[in-house]
């Protein structure tokens, strides 16, 4: 499993754990709230039941009080059967809940009234009408309630019943009426309308499907909600559960609370709830909660993902950065290693890139007693300019090995750099070739800053022709110039990183700043090592810049023409083989002055002679007289011969060497000359300049 999958998995785990925790919290909370709600419902229904019971109690009380307050009137009327009617009127007029009242006499109490006698008063349209209702169709003595009332020791409430055309629910309060002998002779009843109780019980129900019931002591329904509010089946279900005919488990959602009255007739007030309804707000809340939890988790997941993504990106970016950093460090090393590592005493160079890699370069090579050097600055900085710089650097190395003319070197570099230079980068470049014996400096300047020439205590700018930089047009011609440096002359080259070094005020070090340091150097010790000059220049530039970051690559190259003890002789020859005798004498004489040993001297002489003979033989057309100049130079470290002729272009270094492994028979006669020249010297190089062939042979004599 890779790290990405791992981190993805851990992210999923975070979300899952967060979800579980939040959900657990939510469940616990919901459970608590559920209990709270049910508790509240419980205590609330208890209150409701108590108050309902109280209300019923009160209604019954009123009836009972009415009875007690008026029963004496009834008793008084016993003496006259007809006055009973008026007593009933009094009785029922008193209480608005009383629908009617009766006085049912035991059979044959009033002989004049027949066996049965029951005057009954009824409220009809606000008036009270009392009439006799006994008769063959209505034998009240058969009524169980009557029988009980007659036998009862005191007043009693009948079981509720329905009566009349409206099938009103009602109950009757019976009061036994005794005669003077203490015999119960009649039952006085007051009919209490119970239908209003059903409404009372069911007004202000907390939930749409909760309802109240009134039951008898035995559990018979007295009154309940109207059928258009609660279906009868639902009421029946509650009754069945209360009566035990239906187990509670049949409908666990139903919650039934009962309270029995603490007085006769000990009816029960019942409150029925659907628990689900009570808990509906909780469920709604749970749904909202779930929604918000999910939303929160989604946001959390999104954020974690994003964070992880960013983290990942950051991680990758820093890895990439590290990798790039490493590669840049390698690139920097490569670039640094391309720079000359050691300096001959007459030269010192310095390069400090502003970033890891830079677009500046300097380089030099010494060959044939000549010092080829260059300094350049690629437009821009960083990796792209460093790449172009490396190209230019390699090209300079390659070209300056063969080419002697700065103009040609510039042209060769320019052609190569222009090829495929789609990014339109360019570089300023100064190439010089200093003859270490004569002090002749050939140079070409492709748009680079003019070097300073420090000579004889004076500081001047080398007056260079303004050529285009390299990389602009492939066919640019670069004009070559030359001058001769007096011994001790210093050439100080730099890139604009020096003159344009900025301080924190954005001021530049300027050419004047450079000049000042050069003056100080000359004033102190003009013959001090060049390292001192370059180092103090660098210090001065850094002091000037202060805390400002280095904005550009800083490069300096200083060289001094210090010929030391030089030996230089020359001889003019004509193109005749007999001239080799003179040449031999000239060479022996020269070597004599250098006190060379015979072996080295002979080798060098042979190399020179073979080269000169080549020129004599081939440079000029047969029969044409030509001049050949031979120069011999030495600084006591090496010897350099320069052969100059004005003949046809002829590069002897391009001639094939003789095969030295052939046997006598197959040996061609010839081709040995160039072989000997090459083998007996350290280097041999050809160039053609100013219509002249110039062949240079050098050999170390240390």
């Amino acid at each position, binding site marked *: 499993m890779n790290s990405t999958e791992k981190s993805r998995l851990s992210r999923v785990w975070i979300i899952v754990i967060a979800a579980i925790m939040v959900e657990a919290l939510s469940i616990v909370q919901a459970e608590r709230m559920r209990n709270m709600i049910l508790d509240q419902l419980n205590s609330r229904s208890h209150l409701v039941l108590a108050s309902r019971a109280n209300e019923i109690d009160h209604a019954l009380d009123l009836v009972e009080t009415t009875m007690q307050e008026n029963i004496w009137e009834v008793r008084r009327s016993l003496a006259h059967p007809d006055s009973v009617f008026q007593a009933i009127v009094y009785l029922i007029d008193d209480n608005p809940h009383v629908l009617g009242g009766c006085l049912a006499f035991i059979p044959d109490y009033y002989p004049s009234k027949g066996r049965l006698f029951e005057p009954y008063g009824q409220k009809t349209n606000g008036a009270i009408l009392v009439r006799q209702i006994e008769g063959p169709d209505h034998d009240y003595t058969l009524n169980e309630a009557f029988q009980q009332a007659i036998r009862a020791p005191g007043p009693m409430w009948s079981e509720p019943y329905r009566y009349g055309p409206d099938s009103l629910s009602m109950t009757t309060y019976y009061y036994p009426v005794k005669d003077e002998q203490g015999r119960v002779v009649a039952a006085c009843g007051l009919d209490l309308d119970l239908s209003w109780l059903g409404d009372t019980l069911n007004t202000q129900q907390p939930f749409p499907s909760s309802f109240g019931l009134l039951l008898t002591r035995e559990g018979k329904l007295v009154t309940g909600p109207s059928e258009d509010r609660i279906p009868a089946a639902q009421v029946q279900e509650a009754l069945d559960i209360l009566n035990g005919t239906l187990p509670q488990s049949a409908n666990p959602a139903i919650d039934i609370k009962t309270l029995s009255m603490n007085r006769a007739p000990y009816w029960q007030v019942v409150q029925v709830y659907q628990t689900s309804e009570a808990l509906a707000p909780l469920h709604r809340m749970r749904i909202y909660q779930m929604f918000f939890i999910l939303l929160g988790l989604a946001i959390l997941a999104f954020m974690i993902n994003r964070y992880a993504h960013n983290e990942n990106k950051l991680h990758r970016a820093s890895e990439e950065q590290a990798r790039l950093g490493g590669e840049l460090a390698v690139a920097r090393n490569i670039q640094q290693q391309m720079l000359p590592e050691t300096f001959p005493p007459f030269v010192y160079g310095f390069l400090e890139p502003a970033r890891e890699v830079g677009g500046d370069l300097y380089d030099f090579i010494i060959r044939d007693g000549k010092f080829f050097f260059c300094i350049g600055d690629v437009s821009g900085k960083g990796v792209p300019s460093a790449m172009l710089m490396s190209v230019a650097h390699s090209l300079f190395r390659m070209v300056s090995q063969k080419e002697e003319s700065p103009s040609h070197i510039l042209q060769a570099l320019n052609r190569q750099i222009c090829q495929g230079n789609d990014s339109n980068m360019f570089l300023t470049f100064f190439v010089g070739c200093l003859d270490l014996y004569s002090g002749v400096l050939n140079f070409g300047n492709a748009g680079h800053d003019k070097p300073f020439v420090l000579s004889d205590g004076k500081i001047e700018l080398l007056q260079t022709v303004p050529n285009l930089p390299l990389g602009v047009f492939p066919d640019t011609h670069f004009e070559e110039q030359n001058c001769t440096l007096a011994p001790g002359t210093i050439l100080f080259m730099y890139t604009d990183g020096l003159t344009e070094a900025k301080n924190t005020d954005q001021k530049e070090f300027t050419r004047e700043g450079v000049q000042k340091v050069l003056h100080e150097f000359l004033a102190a010790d003009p013959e001090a090592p060049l390292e001192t000059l370059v180092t103090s220049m660098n210090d001065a530039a850094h002091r000037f810049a202060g805390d400002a970051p280095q904005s550009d690559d800083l490069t300096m190259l200083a060289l001094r023409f210090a010929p030391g003890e030089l030996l230089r002789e020359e001889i003019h020859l004509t193109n005749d083989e007999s001239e080799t005798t003179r040449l*031999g004498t000239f060479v022996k004489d020269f070597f004599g002055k250098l006190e060379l040993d015979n072996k080295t001297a002979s080798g060098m002489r042979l190399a020179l002679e073979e080269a000169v003979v080549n020129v004599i033989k081939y440079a000029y057309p047969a029969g044409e007289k030509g001049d050949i100049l031979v120069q011999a130079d030495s600084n006591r470290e090496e010897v350099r011969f320069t052969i100059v002729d004005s003949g046809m272009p002829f590069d002897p270094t391009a001639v094939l060497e003789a095969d030295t492994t052939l046997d006598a028979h197959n040996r061609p006669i010839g081709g040995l000359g160039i072989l000997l020249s090459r083998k007996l010297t350290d280097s041999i190089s050809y160039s053609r300049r100013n219509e002249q062939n110039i062949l240079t042979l050098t050999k170390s004599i240390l």
Partner: protein
Amino acid sequence: MTTSIQETDTRITATLSGELDTAAAQETEKALMPLLNSQGKEIYIDCTSLEYISSSGLRVLLSILKQAKSVGSRVVLKNVNEVIRDVLDLTGFVNIFEFE
């Protein structure tokens, strides 16, 4: 550059002294013409006093060698000094001449 030739029944000895440079080569070649007509005799070239030789000189020696070989004769270089020896080394002539 001086050249002398001594001849016996079986051997021709040429003594070279001085510097056999390009200028001297032509003259030396002429002087050594008898060696090109060795008629089977051994050719000895005494180099004791030869101080210098150029490629032209080597060519002279090579012509002599080729001629001698064609008639079944041998060419021996005597007392070659270090300087000359080096040149013979460089050119591979050490492999085709005999030395004493």
